């Protein structure tokens, strides 16, 4: 592990790219319609026609799992982008200081001291189970960590010589923030974004598992809740297949976050050759 952090980073990257491709083109592997019931009269074990079997309503589990990958990647990408967008406030707070900083940090503290998952559930109940709603809810309640990292990095960066020299040369504050500070904040933020990606997926799976998800979206969370019932009729495949797939993706994302941290922020890790 300590010998070649690069190689493991490449392998992880490749696995995730493959997952992304799978998510973009689910039609490559399956010709069945997702969420369409009645392929079999009821629960059917894995067979040649249905590699991962079907659920109680005769829906193809394999197709659902593949489409679930797509849903998870969609949720991860969208929520992380929303978080990243809002978290840019942290950079301004750090750079401008004073009132701006105080206001932004108050909002951050406030958001952090609200029990997040309870609020996500409340919002999802109120605003309805529309897929877009759920993404917006998760995204707008999960940004404080990223904002804090951006602020902390900016605070140290703004005293560096290259920023000071840009300021002396008369650059506009916004130019400094976007062209001098922003690129240098990224190494600290990217690993945290990989982590946020997986946390958003977990939130969506949890919401769908509770039955608050969009009924038209083939989320793993919903399949898992179907599987929870199916095991009593012996249908282990309905429960275990989505679990294995989502655990695989979550572990890959967390490993990626760790490796990115090793590479970008070697000081943060005390292992290896320190």
């Amino acid at each position, binding site marked *: *592990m*300590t010998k070649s952090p690069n190689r493991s980073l490449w392998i992880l990257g490749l696995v995730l790219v493959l997952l992304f491709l799978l998510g973009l083109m689910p039609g490559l592997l399956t010709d069945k319609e997702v969420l369409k019931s009645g392929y079999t009269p009821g629960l059917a074990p894995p067979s040649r026609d249905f590699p991962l079997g079907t659920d109680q309503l005769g829906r193809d589990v394999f197709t659902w799992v593949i489409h679930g990958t797509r849903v998870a990647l969609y949720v991860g990408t969208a929520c992380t982008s929303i978080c990243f967008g809002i978290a840019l406030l942290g950079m301004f707070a750090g750079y401008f200081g004073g009132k701006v900083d105080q206001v932004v940090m108050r909002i951050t*503290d*406030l958001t952090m*001291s*609200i*029990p*997040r*998952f*309870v*609020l996500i*559930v*409340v*919002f999802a*109940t*109120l*605003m*309805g189970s529309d897929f877009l709603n759920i993404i917006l809810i998760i995204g707008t309640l999960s940004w404080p960590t990223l904002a804090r990292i951006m602020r902390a990095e900016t605070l140290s960066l703004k005293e560096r010589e290259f920023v000071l020299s840009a300021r002396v040369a008369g650059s506009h504050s916004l130019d400094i923030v976007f062209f001098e500070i922003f690129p240098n904040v990224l190494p600290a933020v990217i690993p945290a974004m990989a982590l946020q990606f*997986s946390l958003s997926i*977990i939130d969506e*799976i*949890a919401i769908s*598992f*509770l*039955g*608050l998800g969009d009924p038209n979206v083939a989320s793993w969370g919903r399949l*898992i809740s179907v599987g*929870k019932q199916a*095991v*009593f009729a012996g249908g*282990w495949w309905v*429960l*275990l297949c989505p*679990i294995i797939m*989502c*655990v695989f993706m*979550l*572990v890959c*994302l*967390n*490993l990626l976050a*760790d490796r990115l941290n090793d590479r970008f922020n070697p000081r943060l*890790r*005390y*292992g*290896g050759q*320190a």
Partner: protein
Amino acid sequence: MPYLVKRLIQIPVVVLVVVTLGFFLLKFAPGDPVALFAGEGATPEYLETIRKEYGLDRPLFEQYLMYMGGIFTGRWGYSLSFERPVLTVILERMPYTLLLSFAAFLVAVPMGIVLGVIAATHRSSPLDLFVSGFATFFNSVPAFIIGLVLVYIFAVIMKVLPLGGFQTVGATFTSFFGELLDLLKHLILPAVSLALIWMVGYSRVMRNTMVESLLSDYVRAATSRGISRPRVVYRHAFRNSILAVVTLAGIHVGYMIGGVILTETVFSWFGIGQLVVQAVHFRDYPLLLGILFFSSIWVGAVNLLVDAIYVSIDPRVKLR
């Protein structure tokens, strides 16, 4: 102003914001809770009576003031689905959530600390790699997924432990110990699935802070003064990591209610988490708001407590 006082003031502010936000959002949510409460086929006159009875016919702002006033006098509204005061329902469930979390802590904290110390003192050995791998795995996966797999293995296939609930349905107990044993049996699976997730948090934090301590100058100085290795590890490096453990414990206890919603749902555990799901299912708005309110106070109080603990265990920490 002392830091702790500032934090104390922060709690009502957070709660006020949360309740205001929650109240107005709930009011504008789609679906009529009164119609749901009355059931199908209720006459408009009957709906009107219910509205009057619960004060839902007054102007919105008046309802809001009524709600706020009630909150500060301990009247948290009336649960529509349980037909009992919200606070009573919440407080009735809280002991079960506390019991579950406490059981998980009892496993997670000591085990996590032991694993972390082993990993730190055997840095870069296969043992360390194994602990790290274990930690990465359980750090990535949510507790309810672990719970589902455990239920499948131990309750569905092996049938050695109950599927869920907190008591065997229909059982009569002849002795207190019989009842206790039954409760413990039901507690094992949910507690273990939470404990596994929490545990790796402690082991990670413990390992990283201890490796840092073990490489630091004061540990080197202690070693060069001839202090034995175990003493250096336990008296010098170990004590320094306690602060990080307290921080993590604060996070776990503070966000407990949100953290156990899914685990309690998987195991039908009779706690606050399951109550949330019930409130959602019945669109029991007052109850849902009450839970949100309760958990915000809980987070604030726990944060305050953690800060106070900081000051008392580490003389270097001076909170402004």
